[in-house]
Each structure stands twice: as structure tokens, then as C-alpha cells.
């Protein structure tokens, strides 16, 4: 006689149904994710790597990665064959073949050329954002976690920082616009102050190294790389501060005590016995956080991004040394999220324009994945190296 014999099947059935329900929902999410990735890859991969397209072609479409976006010209030639090419190529072609028959000419803005401008712009925005957010974020976390007396006031600061994470991105965009773009007192190093906007300018004598011959002009930043980068930085700050605090808390108390007991000052203790061991955690989490804001459109559409630019940022910047850097930082840039928004929302989808739309999304997805992988790599690398 089996004392543990199954007596009722109803219980078993219920159990099975419950498990199946949860499993179903879980796999639904997986299906959604897979569908999105597969769809983007199927459409975008042939643009980046024409070898995978139906027609076949080169392994890597370097033009797509190295050319600036421009207008795409569509036309039908004398034999009734449809062509499409970027404006510059079209102009060249007409110059070389003045007799060519061009019919049904149609121009599609932003859809020709490549995405070099937005790629570089996003990379620069991420760089500025990362630098600013890390400096402010680490400083704030160190203060809150190591220096500040834990009490109601510090709890309130923490709460305020956490609330920052809940602010809609469009609000950050408007805040950035008001604070970083319109605020007229933000200084710019320039050789020629803007007569209309400059409130006052401090000239530097010729003999001063690095700065000689120019002005420190208080004329505001306008739509610029630095305004966009800083807006993104403010947005990612809550994530970075939380991550830093977690990393600092994870440092064993023994390190701090050992350091202090050897006669270290508080700052020496933090610098030599706390921060070095918290860095991996801080970096990993920060890269992940920055990856998220790199994809944001709303904060940069008011503060930094423009749809069309003739040159890459470093080619467009003028001046030398400090003035070149200042010019680079205070010039507007193209950015991937805004570029995708532009080509998706403002351009009708035709066979000719689809390549730019699909290709941009695919490359941007790759870019974000690359950042995320970097973060994972950092975590694994440091975890192996630093253990206690």
C-alpha cells in the first residue's frame, strides 16, 4: 500500500494551469523581443552589409557609415529605369553627362548618403554626458555616503535625487533648453564674440599662452553639443548616484577602518582605500545608464540636435586649441535618435528611402548593444581582477 498515493487530480491540474499561465506570459515577452530584433536585423542588415541583400553586393557598405546624410534624388532615365542617389552624386553625374535624360525627378530630404554625422554626434554627446555625469555623480555619492551626517536632511536629498529619475524626458529637454541654451551668462572661448548675444567679453592679450588673441565671451551656449551633453548628464545623474552609492556601500568596512587606523585622513582613506575598489561597479553601472540616455530623443531635440549638417563636428569647428574645443562644444550636432525620428516621421517611406530608415535603426541598435557589452565586459574583467 502506497501511503503517498495521489488521491486527487484536481490539485495537479490547477498546479499545471498556474505554471502554464506564468510561462505563457514570460514567453510572450521573449517573443516580442525576438520579433523586434529579428525585424530590425532583417531589414537593416542588408543596408549595412549588402552582401546579405537579395541583389548581393559588397561586404560592408562603407558609404553608409562614412558619409553625411543628405537629400536623396530619385529619377527615371530615358530607358524608363529608376535611379536614386544622393544629391552630390547626382550633381556630379549631370555635370559629367549633360545630355542625360532625367524624368520624374523627386527629392527626399535627409534620406541619402550615410549616417556619419549622427553617429559621431551621438558618440560626442555620450562622451560629454559621461564625463559630466561621472564627475558630479561620484562627488555627490561620496558626499552622501562618506561625509554627510545620516539624517533626515540627507534622506530628503536622496529622495529628491531619486525623484529626478521620474521626471519625463521632455521636461528635461525643456529644462536643458532654458538652462543651458538660453541662459545668456554661460561663457564661450571665441576669437569673434557674437555681437548680438554677447553680454560682455574679456579679451586675452596676445602673449598669454594658449588663450592669447581671443575672448572669453559671455554669450550663452545656444543649441550645442555641451548643452545636450549636460542635459543628458542631469538625466542620468540619479542612476549614476544610486550606482555609486551602492558601489561605495559594498566596500568592506575593514578597508576604511584599516586605512583610518593607519593615520589616513578621511580624504586619503576615500581616495586610496575606497574609490579604487568602487570604480569597477561605478563604471559598469554608469556605462549602462549612459547607454539608456544615449537613445533619448526628447532631451536633445531642444538642446543639441539638428537634422542636417554639412560637415562632421571636428571639421566644422574653427580656431586652434582652446578655441577649437570651445567651438566644437558650442556647435550643434546631429544625433542618432533625432536622425531616426526625422527620417521616420518626416520622410515618406518609399523603396528608395527605406534603406536610410532601416539602416539607421539597425546601426543604432548595434551601437547601443556595443555599449551594453562594454559594460558587461568591464564587470567581468574587474570582478576577476578585484576580489576580496
Amino acid at each position, binding site marked *: 500500500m502506497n501511503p503517498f498515493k495521489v488521491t486527487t487530480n484536481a490539485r495537479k491540474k490547477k498546479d499545471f494551469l498556474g505554471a502554464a499561465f506564468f510561462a505563457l506570459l514570460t514567453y510572450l515577452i521573449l517573443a516580442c523581443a525576438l520579433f523586434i530584433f529579428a525585424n530590425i536585423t532583417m531589414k537593416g542588415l542588408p543596408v549595412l552589409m549588402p552582401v546579405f541583400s537579395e541583389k548581393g553586393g559588397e561586404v560592408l557598405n562603407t558609404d553608409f557609415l562614412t558619409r553625411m546624410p543628405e537629400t536623396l534624388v530619385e529619377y527615371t532615365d530615358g530607358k524608363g529605369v529608376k535611379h536614386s542617389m544622393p544629391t552630390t552624386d547626382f550633381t556630379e553625374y549631370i555635370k559629367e553627362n549633360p545630355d542625360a535624360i532625367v524624368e520624374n525627378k523627386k527629392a527626399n530630404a535627409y534620406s541619402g548618403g550615410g549616417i556619419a554625422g549622427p553617429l559621431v554626434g551621438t558618440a560626442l554627446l555620450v562622451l560629454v554626458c559621461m564625463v559630466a555625469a561621472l564627475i558630479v555623480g561620484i562627488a555627490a555619492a561620496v558626499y552622501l555616503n562618506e561625509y554627510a551626517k545620516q539624517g533626515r536632511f540627507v534622506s530628503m536629498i536622496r529622495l529628491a535625487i531619486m525623484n529626478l529619475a521620474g521626471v519625463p524626458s521632455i521636461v528635461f529637454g525643456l529644462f536643458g533648453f532654458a538652462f543651458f541654451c538660453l541662459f545668456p551668462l554661460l561663457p564661450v572661448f571665441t576669437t569673434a564674440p557674437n555681437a548680438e548675444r554677447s553680454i560682455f567679453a574679456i579679451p586675452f592679450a596676445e602673449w598669454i599662452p594658449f588663450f592669447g588673441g581671443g575672448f572669453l565671451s559671455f554669450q550663452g551656449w545656444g543649441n550645442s553639443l555641451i548643452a545636450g551633453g549636460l542635459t543628458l548628464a542631469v538625466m542620468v545623474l540619479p542612476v549614476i548616484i544610486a550606482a555609486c552609492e551602492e558601489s561605495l556601500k559594498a566596500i568592506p568596512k575593514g578597508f576604511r577602518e584599516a586605512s*583610518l587606523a593607519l593615520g589616513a585622513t578621511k580624504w586619503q582613506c576615500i581616495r586610496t582605500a575606497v574609490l579604487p575598489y568602487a570604480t569597477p561597479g561605478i563604471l559598469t553601472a554608469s556605462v549602462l545608464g549612459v547607454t539608456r540616455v544615449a537613445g533619448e530623443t526628447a532631451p536633445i531635440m531642444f538642446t543639441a540636435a539638428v537634422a542636417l549638417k554639412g560637415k562632421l563636428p571636428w571639421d566644422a569647428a574653427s580656431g586652434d586649441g582652446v578655441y577649437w574645443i570651445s567651438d566644437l562644444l558650442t556647435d550643434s550636432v546631429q544625433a542618432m535618435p533625432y536622425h531616426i525620428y526625422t527620417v521616420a516621421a518626416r520622410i515618406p517611406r518609399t523603396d528608395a528611402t527605406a534603406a536610410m530608415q532601416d539602416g539607421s535603426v539597425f546601426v543604432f541598435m548595434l551601437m547601443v548593444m556595443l555599449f551594453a557589452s562594454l559594460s558587461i565586459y568591464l564587470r567581468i574583467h574587474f570582478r576577476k581582477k578585484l576580489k576580496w
Partner: protein
Amino acid sequence: MVTTTSRPTATAEIATDTDPMNQPADTADKNREPARSHVSNNPNPVAKEEAMIEVDDVSFSYDMGKTNILRNISFNIPAGKVTALIGPSGCGKSTLLRCLNRMNDLVDTSKVTNGQIRIMGQDINAGDVDPIELRKQVGMVFQKYNPFPKSIYDNVAYGLRIQGIKNKSKLDEAVEKSLQRAALWSEVKDRLNSSALGLSGGQQQRLCIARTIAVSPRIVLMDEPCSALDPIATARIEELIAELQEEFTIVIVTHNMQQATRVSDRTAFFYLGELIEYDDTTTIFGNPSVTQTEDYVSGRFG
């Protein structure tokens, strides 16, 4: 009439007695010499001239004085000897140890509510005492060995480096000397640049001792230094303590009473935040004058 006038005076007296803030420090000193409350528990006191550390009627609180973890502790710790602090968990012996190098400063709400701790004659809680300078003279070895996840060399050189010493040959010399004094040199001299975390537990604790003595303190505080180690590693640390006492004044907190008998010259027995008895180790374990001490050291309680 008489009763109503006398009452406020009585309460005022009590207030000044327990609250050092209301009393000028030097008059308080004169009033308390010799220490009153535990005279009977301190039958064989260390003379002031021999004392490295004077603990004088000290009360200590972790919550701004609401409850005292230590109550009116008075005893002198002799220079160049090993003094053991024993007692059951929570009796305040580690707290007292951490008062001696002001590690309790790390707790925002901690406070010495009464009395004075004098090291080399100086009140260490006085306003013009820099805890950084104090800790250079009063080193500490912790219960859980805590080397930094750096190389062995960098661990020992840490204290000197934060004092701004960069000279390579000076550091080399100090590292070698400290490791030798910590009886670790022969075991690690070929791998000074490998991680300290690759060492065994006992070696790591000796490395921590080397790190502590590298900055040449006068006093070394040890907070249950062997509690995480096996008997063989413990024996090596105890040998080391015996050697180090020639150079340093050592105060050791221990749960292990046999250890106290093996390593210490003097023993202080604490119970519930009070010093019950303080005497030569042989007396404490052989012929204690307080019953509580006898009960504890003979294993009848605790």
C-alpha cells in the same frame, strides 16, 4: 522651607557629578585622584609613572549620552607590556579599545560622556588633538584580517605612503623590517608583488600586524586578532605578540581566556560596561579578589 531649598542643591550636585560639560576639566581631575569608584577592584594599580595609557573615570555612549556602554572605567595600562581585556560579549571591551585610538569617531552619535583618556599624559579627546596624529601613534589590528586587495608590498607600505614617503629605498627598508618583525619576511620575500589575498588567513593577519607596525606606533591595539584563525596560526600570532611587546605597548581584547593567560602581563575583566577587576594576569586567573571574576575565569558563567 528648608526642604524646598535643599532639594535643588542636591540635584545640581548630581548633575555636575555626571556631566563633565558643567565642570571645569582640571578641577574634575583633582577631585578624582586617586580614582574613586573602583579602588577595591584595582588592588594592585599601575603607577602613573609607568602608565602609557590612563583611563580615568571614563563613560562612553553610542547615542549621545542616552545610554552609557561604558560606565566610570578607571585603570592604567603600563608601557611596554601586554594588557588583556577580557569579558563576555557586549561588555564593552572592544568599545573601550576603539576609544583608545578614537575609532569610535566614525560613529556620528558616539561620545565620551565622562572622564578622560590620557595617552602619554595627553587627554586624547581634547579639542586640539588631531585623531590622525593620534592614530599614527596608536595602531590597530582588527578581528577580521583586512589587508587591502593590493600586493603584499603595497599593503605594508600603505601607512608610510599616506604620510607622504615616496623614497623607494626608504620604503623597501621599512617594508622588509616590518615584515621581519611580523615574522612573515621569510615566507613572502619572493612574492612581495603578488596579491595579499593569496596568503593564508594567519599570514594575512600577520601582514596586517606588519602594516600596523610599519608606521612605528607606540601602542598596538588588537581586537580579538586570533578569533578568525586556527590554533596553529593563533600560536604564531601569540609568539609574535610576545616578541613585539619589547617595542610596543600592546592592548589585546580576547574572548579566549587561555590566550589572555599566555600572552598578557595584566588583565582587566569587564562585565556589562563596568571594570570588575584589574590586576596582574596571574592574580586574575589564580587568586581574583572579586567573585564575579572568579566565576568568569573558572568558566562558571560567561
